[in-house]
């Protein structure tokens, strides 16, 4: 019985192979069988070890025949290895095309038999090798997040480089990469508070252009200008940075000429890589910039190779224009329209810092003759609230200005809180300017609704639950003030027990956020992964 089952299985494999080799189309049943087999393979790879036995049992049931001769041998070989999953996987795979028996051919039978045996042996070897390799928990070793033989241990993804600054190996790798791309390395500055020693901390007085040649040849001048503007804070704010980045890319694309024997789709992407490293050195990339870069790279790689250069370039320029128009400008309009429904007459709205989107919403609401007043909350050292205050007052909106230390004093007056976001993470956390989570927390305590406005292009697949893991450290000298001609903190570096910390971002848990307004509609914070999935499917 077992043997017949085996032969059936092998016959089936042989049948399909024969059909394929003869060039005939597979029949409907055969196609269905192939599809089922692929699905089962996928499922098997994802299942954990404790379900392996269940699976193999199910496999056996799925397969109409009972266990065959090669199977127990394969299983015993697998049992020698620490994990037993891979071994049953290929064997049922080979058996999967076995549901319905088919007429057998003698030569096909032996070929298929040999194949299955060979596969089983390979799996056994691989499993034993994985066992010898040791703990796959180390981040370096777990290059492939789904290592086949190590599903006993949890899968660890590789940590990004920019949050491993205290690891000298990572720094060495970074230095080598930058050297290869001919970009100078920017050195860290000053003493870093120990909790954040894994992040970069740069000084604004030591720009990266010091080490570049003056008519910059390696890096396109538009990118050098952009990097300078980022590092000096002239272009700040998620939307502004993305728009400026796309503008610089437009110039790069316009000035680009394909070198001979190269394809535009591959060469341009390689040309952009050092620029992106340079910008990253000037100021760590934001999530919105990352998404814009991903989009551009995808568009470039999708250019067909027979496309002429002029055509390709104009197509790319159009893509950039489309991206800005749709994802930033129109999205802002859509969000403004939905938000205006939430603003009623007599509202007292609290905003924090200077978010271009929130300012836009408030200005639009004011144009549509809603009666409300605004409380602008500000914090040191950036004091961005002053800029928001200026823009709102210029329109004629009546505003109050407080520092963040007074937020619990002023909150009883507030009816709604509108916050902007730098990025929305995949677990529903909101990453925004430092201080935002404080405001959300206090607002929650006072039962004031918190609405976060964010375009979908800022949605990020990263997951973070605290503000320590991944953040940005700004220049610590920004915290130094001179009052009445005296600068008390001038020599802070000489004090051994003093460290200055200038954080830029923090994360707000979704419990504090009541609604997220995006151009796709008003969604709760926990629906962010859905939007991400929908976006991925679209692309």
């Amino acid at each position, binding site marked *: 019985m077992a043997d017949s089952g085996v032969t059936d299985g092998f016959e089936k494999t042989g049948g399909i192979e024969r059909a394929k080799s003869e060039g005939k189309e597979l029949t409907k049943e055969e196609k269905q069988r192939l599809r089922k087999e692929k699905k089962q393979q996928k499922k098997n790879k994802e299942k954990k070890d404790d379900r392996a036995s269940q699976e193999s049992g199910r496999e056996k049931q799925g397969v109409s025949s009972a266990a065959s001769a090669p199977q127990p041998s394969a299983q015993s070989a697998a049992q020698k290895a620490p994990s037993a999953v891979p071994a049953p996987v290929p064997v049922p795979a080979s058996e999967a095309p076995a549901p319905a028996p088919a007429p057998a051919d003698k030569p096909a039978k032996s070929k298929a038999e040999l194949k299955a045996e060979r596969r089983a042996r390979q799996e056994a070897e691989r499993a034993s090798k994985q066992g010898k390799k040791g703990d796959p928990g180390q981040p370096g070793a777990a290059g492939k997040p789904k290592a086949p033989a190590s599903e006993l241990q949890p899968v660890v993804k590789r940590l990004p480089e920019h949050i491993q600054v205290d690891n000298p190996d990572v720094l060495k790798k970074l230095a080598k990469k930058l050297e290869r791309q001919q970009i100078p390395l920017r050195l860290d500055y000053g003493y870093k508070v120990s909790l954040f020693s894994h992040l970069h901390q740069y000084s604004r007085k030591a720009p990266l252009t010091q080490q570049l040649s003056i008519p910059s040849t390696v890096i396109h001048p538009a990118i050098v200008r952009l990097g300078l503007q980022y590092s000096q804070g002239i272009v700040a704010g998620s939307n502004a940075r993305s728009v400026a980045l796309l503008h610089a890319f437009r110039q790069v694309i316009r000035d680009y000429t394909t070198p001979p024997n190269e394809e535009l789709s591959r060469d341009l992407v390689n040309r952009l890589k050092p620029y992106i490293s340079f910008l990253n050195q000037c100021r760590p990339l934001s999530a919105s910039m990352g998404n814009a870069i991903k989009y551009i790279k995808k568009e470039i790689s999708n250019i067909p190779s027979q496309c002429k250069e002029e055509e390709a370039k104009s197509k790319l320029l159009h893509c950039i224009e489309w991206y800005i128009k749709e994802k930033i400008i129109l999205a802002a309009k859509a969000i403004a329209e939905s938000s205006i429904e939430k603003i009623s007459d007599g509202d007292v709205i609290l905003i924090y810092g200077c978010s271009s989107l929130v300012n836009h919403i408030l200005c639009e609401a004011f144009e549509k003759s809603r009666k409300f007043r605004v409380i602008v909350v500000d914090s040191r050292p950036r004091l961005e609230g002053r*800029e928001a205050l200026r823009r709102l007052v210029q329109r004629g909106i009546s505003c109050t200005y407080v520092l963040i230390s007074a937020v619990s004093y002023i909150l009883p007056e507030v009816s709604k809180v509108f916050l902007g976001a730098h990025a929305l993470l995949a677990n529903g956390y909101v990453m925004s300017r430092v201080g935002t989570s404080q405001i959300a927390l206090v607002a929650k305590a006072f039962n004031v609704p918190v609405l976060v406005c964010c375009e979908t292009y800022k949605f990020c697949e990263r997951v973070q639950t605290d503000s320590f893991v991944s953040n940005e450290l700004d220049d610590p000298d920004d915290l130094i003030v001179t009052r009445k001609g005296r600068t008390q903190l001038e020599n802070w570096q000489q004090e051994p027990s003093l460290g200055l910390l200038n954080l830029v971002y923090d994360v707000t848990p979704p419990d504090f956020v009541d609604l997220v307004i995006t151009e796709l509609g008003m969604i709760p914070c926990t629906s962010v992964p859905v939007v991400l999935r929908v976006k991925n499917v679209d692309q």
Partner: protein
Amino acid sequence: MELQAVLMAAGGGSRMTDLTYSTPKPMLPVGNKPLMWYPLNLLERVGFEEVIVITTKEVQKMMSTDPKMKPDVKMKMEVVCVPEDGDMGTADALRHIQQKIKTDILVVSCDLITDVALHEVVDLFRAHNATLAMLMSKAYEFTETVPGQKGKKRTAEQRDFVGVDQSGKRLLFMANEADLEDGLSVRKSIIRKHPRMHIKTGLVDAHLYCLKKAVVDFLTENKSISSIRGELVPYLVRKQFSNAVNSQKVKDDSEDQTQKNNESSTNHELLISSRDESLLQLAQERSCWNDHRGDMCEAYHGGKLRCYVHIMDQGLCYRVNTLAAYIEANRQAPKLFDEPPVHSSAAISERCQVGSDSIIGAQCQIADKTSIKRSTIGVSSTVKERVKVTNSIVMHGVTIEEGCNIQGSVICSNAIIGRGADLKYCLVGNGQRIEPEAERTNEVIVGTDQLMEI
């Protein structure tokens, strides 16, 4: 390409005619290198690979023929000759080479000796998308006695009044004392936008300018401007706050391009910006940065024309356009290059004392018992026995016979100082002969043909 370098080497050196009547200013030796070498070295050090040199035919000939005059830089130099009649100003020269200019330019004068970190100036130009970025330095008081100067120091030259904003970077006001007839008048529009202005007078203009290409195009249209320093820079600084320019700005935060097109003013050449003006505008609006605070205006007050200045307070910066500056530059120049002060091919005899701060050029012959302190001896000069040279500059091909005593003087090329002469604070012109046993103090000894020139 980002920047093109232009070196202005056609200047006459009108303030030190005693030195320049025979040697053109760009070729005057400073630390045994032609004066032109210093700005070229600066450009080469920061990474320029090409430079356009605007000079006279004479200088070009000297550069190509005379080996000791040849500035040996690795850059590609494109020499453009202009007629020598001296009527061509620096702006006229730019107009002359307008065809060669394809991008923004960095104009340097040949008499600038500095060790500034050039990225400071260029970063202002890049980051703020400025129309003009220039370099200035705190003026240096020359303490060395200048040969030929009789009596007290002359009254200070015409001062420059430079107004900068609170950050010290934005240039608000620039005027020369000569242009101000009855007092300094500042426009109300400037004060309204920048209520705190610092006016400085003790600054020297290094004549290093980063200019946008649009300015060069503007110059070709307006042929009345002939000098960059004298006319173009004050014009640009004034134009920052001109109403005609600012009326082009969009009042609201909306990017309404039709509005801009309708209100084009006559000075639109200056405001030619990149083709993606709307994107830049969008980025600026969305950005939460402002360069000033306290009033209701957006960043830069909506002005499109911006002038910036970097004021050096440390480091070397000399404009070698007077004799005093020339002498000072010779003292300080060795700091700027790493060659050994004593050239390897100089034949210095054993029993002479050469101070560590002296520079001896190639193929010199220094005989016994000489003492050379704080001086520069040029190429192929001969110094015979028992000569004392202190605090002096001796150019190329000079012969100093035995027993001379030279103090605080400048001896130009090919001069011959007779035996036993005693020169204190003198300037000996080119090819002059000083008779033996002469005693001169504080005199300028030049040829008779030069005495006629005024």
